[in-house]
Structure formats: C-alpha cells, structure tokens
C-alpha cells in the first residue's frame, strides 16, 4: 500500500465542503434535482424492464380466458408439454397484441418526447398536434376510396399514414410558427386542434360518401385507436421502424438537447436548426405514420409518458428517450389489458382509455404551466 500523497488528503475535505455548501443553500433540491449517477439510470432501466416483463405476462394471462401465469411462462419458455388449448391463445392471439402494444406505446412516447423538444413546448403530442389524425385520415382514405388498389394494404396503408402524418405536421408547424420563429402554447394547441378537426371531418365525409357498412367498423377503429388487429405477420414493419427510429433519435440526443435552449442558443452552439428540424420532422412522421397504420390514433400516450419520464431522469435526451420508450411500452400494455378486461367480453378501444386518463392529465399540465408562467412574470 503506497502512502497517501499530501494532495490526496485534501480531496475528501474539499468534497465535503462543497456538499455542505449545497445543502445549506438548498436544503431540499427542487424537483429532486440531485446530480444523477449512472447507477440511478441503470436502476431505472432495470425496474422498467422488469415492469414490462410483468405487464406482458399479466396481459398474456388475463382476458376472456384466464390462464395461470405459471402456465404462460411455461408456454413462453417452451416447457409446456403436449398440445394445450392455452398455447394458441397465448402465442397466436395475445402475444402479437402485447408486442404491438409495447411497440406502439414505446413509439408514441419517443415521438412525443421528440416533438416536445422540437417545438420547445411540453404540451406537444402526436395526437394533439394533429399528426396522428393526419395519419389515420390518410389510412381511412386508402381503405374507403380504394386508393392504391392492386397493391398490398400492408404497404399502402403505412405509406399513406406516413404521408398524412407528415403533411399534418407541416401544416400545424406553419400555422403555429410566429414570425420570430417561436411557438406559443396557445398557437400550437389551436393549430393542432384546428387541423385535427378538419381531418376528422374529412374522415367522416369520406365515410358518409362511401356509405358501406363494412367500412364503418374499420374507420371507427382507426379513429378510436385499438390493438385488436394484431397478428404475427404484420409486426415486422412497425418493429423495424420503431427500432431504427428510436436508435436514430437516441443518437441525436445531443442536438435534441440543444433545441431545448432555444433557436439562438442552439445556433451559437453550432446546430443548423432549420436542417435538423426538417430531418427530425420526417423521422417522427415516419414512426407515427407506421404505428398509427397498425393501431389507429391512440392519444395522450405521447403527452403523459414523456412527462413522467422527465420527472424520473431529467430532460437530457440520451437517458430520457430510452426511459420514455420503456415507460410507454409498459403503459400501453397495461392500458390494453385494462381495455380488454374492464368490460369483458367487450373489447374497449384502448384509445378511449388513454383519452379518459390523458384528458385530465392535459388539463392539470395546462394549469401547472400557467401557474409557473404567472410565478415567473
């Protein structure tokens, strides 16, 4: 053991003094803003992964037929012996639905987080900004009007959704943007609501004109949002787009952080904001479009989850995005389980449930934001 160098002895003393000073100045760190260690982030991820596994198992076990969770685990791990009636339910009916739910929840949370940074407003959400409505309106047009006939709907619907999402986002962005380049909460929400209404009306119009009963149910499904259509053969596209989109956005964490300090702040720190925004708009539209093509417009997940995630790990995107993705996945798997079971055998569209919880949350956020603005003035 070597002797402690004279300089080394001062280290702990200095550290103690700084922490004592911090404690004196700020006895209760506001909002739990203590410096975060990688361990805390690792713990959060581990807890969320366990929660996702638990929620997934519960979602596989419960429903119109209740299956003991131990049997579910046996089936999943291939330890179930002989043909079992549960096998089909778990593997072919419920598992694709759970996977789609997790993917859509994660995707909406990631897109919501990103949009909030992009417009520098914590009230942004793919649903509130009209992006989801754009995607579903385009999807409905394709179904009802038979656009792109002859091509597989697994291609035409996601493509149309992406285009619809992108167009809606561009329109809302153009309407809400002020000459100086900023976005006020009011303008943004009004623009989003206006675009959503127009798109909803357009969807209804297309439906009325077409007047076919079999379209009605399908359109309703897109408007309300649900995961009931999940099948194994349709999971590849949403999972791929989700994985690539999320990985890219996590890689873009640094410029996303820069956007949070404002247009001029980001520019003087070396970010070409116009080009970056344009690129991220395309990326978020793509993810939203493809997810909405498979689940319909599920609202408020992209609003609530990023907030919850920020409360846990802060606003830096490198840690925020993975946490938001996992939280979104857990949230939607649980919400869909509730949607299937609360009024069983009725299968409530999960979008109805998320709106029921999300609406009040949005109002709370609006009030809190106003209180804070008032306090600052």
């Amino acid at each position, binding site marked *: 053991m070597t002797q402690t160098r004279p300089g080394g002895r001062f280290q702990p003393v200095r550290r103690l003094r700084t922490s004592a000073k911090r404690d004196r100045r700020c006895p209760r760190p506001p909002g739990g803003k203590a410096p975060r260690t990688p361990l805390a982030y690792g713990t959060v991820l581990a807890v969320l992964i366990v929660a996702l596994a638990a929620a997934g198992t519960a979602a596989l076990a419960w429903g119109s037929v209740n299956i003991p969770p131990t049997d579910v685990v046996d089936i999943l791990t291939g330890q179930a012996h002989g043909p079992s009636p549960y096998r089909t339910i778990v593997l072919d009916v419920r598992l694709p639905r759970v996977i789609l739910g997790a993917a859509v929840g994660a995707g909406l949370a990631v897109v919501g987080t990103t949009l909030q940074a992009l417009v520098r407003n914590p009230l942004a959400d793919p649903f509130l900004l009209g992006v989801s409505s754009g995607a579903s309106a385009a999807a409905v047009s394709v179904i009802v009007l038979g656009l792109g006939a002859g091509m597989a709907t697994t291609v035409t619907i996601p493509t149309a959704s992406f285009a619809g999402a992108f167009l809606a986002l561009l329109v809302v962005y153009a309407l809400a943007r002020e000459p100086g380049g900023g976005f006020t909460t009011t303008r943004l929400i009004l623009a989003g609501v206006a675009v959503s209404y127009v798109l909803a009306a357009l969807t209804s119009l297309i439906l009325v004109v077409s007047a076919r009963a079999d379209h009605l149910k399908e359109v309703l499904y897109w408007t309300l949002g649900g995961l009931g259509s999940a099948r194994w053969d349709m999971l590849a596209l949403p999972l791929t787009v989700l994985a690539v989109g999320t990985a890219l956005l996590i890689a873009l964490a640094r410029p996303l952080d820069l956007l949070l300090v*404002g247009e001029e702040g980001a520019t003087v720190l070396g970010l070409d904001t116009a080009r970056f925004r344009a690129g991220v708009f395309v990326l978020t539209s793509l993810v939203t479009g493809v997810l909405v093509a498979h689940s319909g417009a599920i609202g408020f997940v992209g609003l609530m989850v990023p907030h919850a995630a920020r409360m846990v790990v802060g606003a*830096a995107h490198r840690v925020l995005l993975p946490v938001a993705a996992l939280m979104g996945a857990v949230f939607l798997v649980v919400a869909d389980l509730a949607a299937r079971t609360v009024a069983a055998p009725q299968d409530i569209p999960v979008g109805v449930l998320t709106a029921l919880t999300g609406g009040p949350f949005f109002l709370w956020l609006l009030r809190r934001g106003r209180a804070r603005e008032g306090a600052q003035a």
Partner: protein
Amino acid sequence: MRLHVEDLSYETPSGRRLVDAVSLAVSAGETVGLVGPNGSGKTTLLRCVYGALRPTGGRVLLDGDDLADAGVKARARRIATVPQDGQTGFELTVRQIVAMGRSPHKRFWEGDTAADEDLVQGALERVGAAALAGRAFARLSGGERQRVLTARALVQEPAVLVLDEPTNHLDIRYQLEILGLVRGLGTANLLALHDLTLAAYYCDRLYVLDAGRVVASGPPGDVLTGELLAKVYGVAAEVVVHPATGAPTVTYLPGTVGEPRA
C-alpha cells in the same frame, strides 16, 4: 488571431437600417467595448458577428476567412457568446447546460468524456457557480443564469468571445469578477456594455455607436469625453481620470442635454 468586421450593415425586412457600414477589429488578447445608447445597434451588430443574424451588407472575417462561408458548427468552434433567449420550459441541470458548450467540438452522437467534465467543472468554478451544478437551470435567478451561460461560453474554448451586456443582472462583485475573467482569457473579446466606467476600466479600446454608425473609437481616455456623452447620450457628464484606477470615470450631472432622443 484577429476578428475583422468590414463595412457591416443590417437592414430589417421592412427596410430599417439598424447597423450602417460598421468596421472594427479585435485582436487576440484584446478586449474591445461597444458602447452607445439604447437602439444604437449594439445588439444587432453582435448578433451578426456571432451568427444569429445574417448581415445584409459587409463581412465578418476571422483571420481573413469570411464567416458566411463557414458552417454553423465551424463558427461555433471559434466564436462563443451568451445568447439572450436562455429560457427553457424543460428542466436541465446547470451542469447539463454548461456541458452543451462542448457540442461544436463533437460529432452529434458523441458523449462527454472525463476531460469534458473537467472543463465543465473548471468553468463553473471560474464563474463562481460550482455550487449550482446540480440545480435546475430554469429555477436560477437572472444573475446566476448569466454566470452559468458565461461558463458555457468558456467551455466552448473559443478564439473570440462576443458578449452582449455580460454584467446584466449581476451584482457589482460578479460584474468585476466576470469582466476580469474575460479580460484574462487571452481571447479576442468584443463586449457591449452599458456602464461606461466599467467599459473604460476593462476595455483596451471602445467603439461608440449611435444610430447604427461608429461615431468615435479609440482608447477609453480619448473616446469618453463630456462633449461626446452630451452629443451621443444627451446627458451632461464629467469625465475624470480616477487616481486609483488610472482609468476615466464618468460622473453624470443632473438634467439632460438637448432634445429627447427618438
């Protein structure tokens, strides 16, 4: 290293000329002050220099390279500033805000290294904000924010430091500390300042702007005269060389001079 502003003009889209053919130069190790009344074009000129505005005429040269040809990121590696709109609705910590200063030196996917973290810590200590490191930036006072954003500019390791009212919101002790710190960096410093006595003490040379034009320039002792202050600011003032500092000190006399300014 030399910053050269050449015949720079800026006209708003509606045709108002805020900066009119201004030329100035700042060398490495030199601190140059920009003074002038409200609306004289100081902020607009500085925003053109650090790239938030595109000048409608003239050039900004760094060692002869036209900055209009350099990318946003290349410019941010050489020029640092404290921008005006530092507000954010999201809760980033002070440490995260300061670490953003490393961005121009990084590929977008790169994280911060231990060396970056040392730079951040060092900069926070230099501006006296080390105790704030873990706090939420959005909840700091105006003066605390100003110091934190100054630390971020230091972390950028720029050749040129452009600061618009760096002493805004600061109490007198931090005003002196920040100006002394900036002066000692060895960078080419271009500062807009309201306090003429501070400007005279900390700047090697001053440029006086009025209605977008340079009306006087040179060492503070030559530029700051009662006559000039009466003409540009419309105030009566006495300028004496202070025995302790050796720099001109401005004392304002009651009442104003001439017509009120538009």
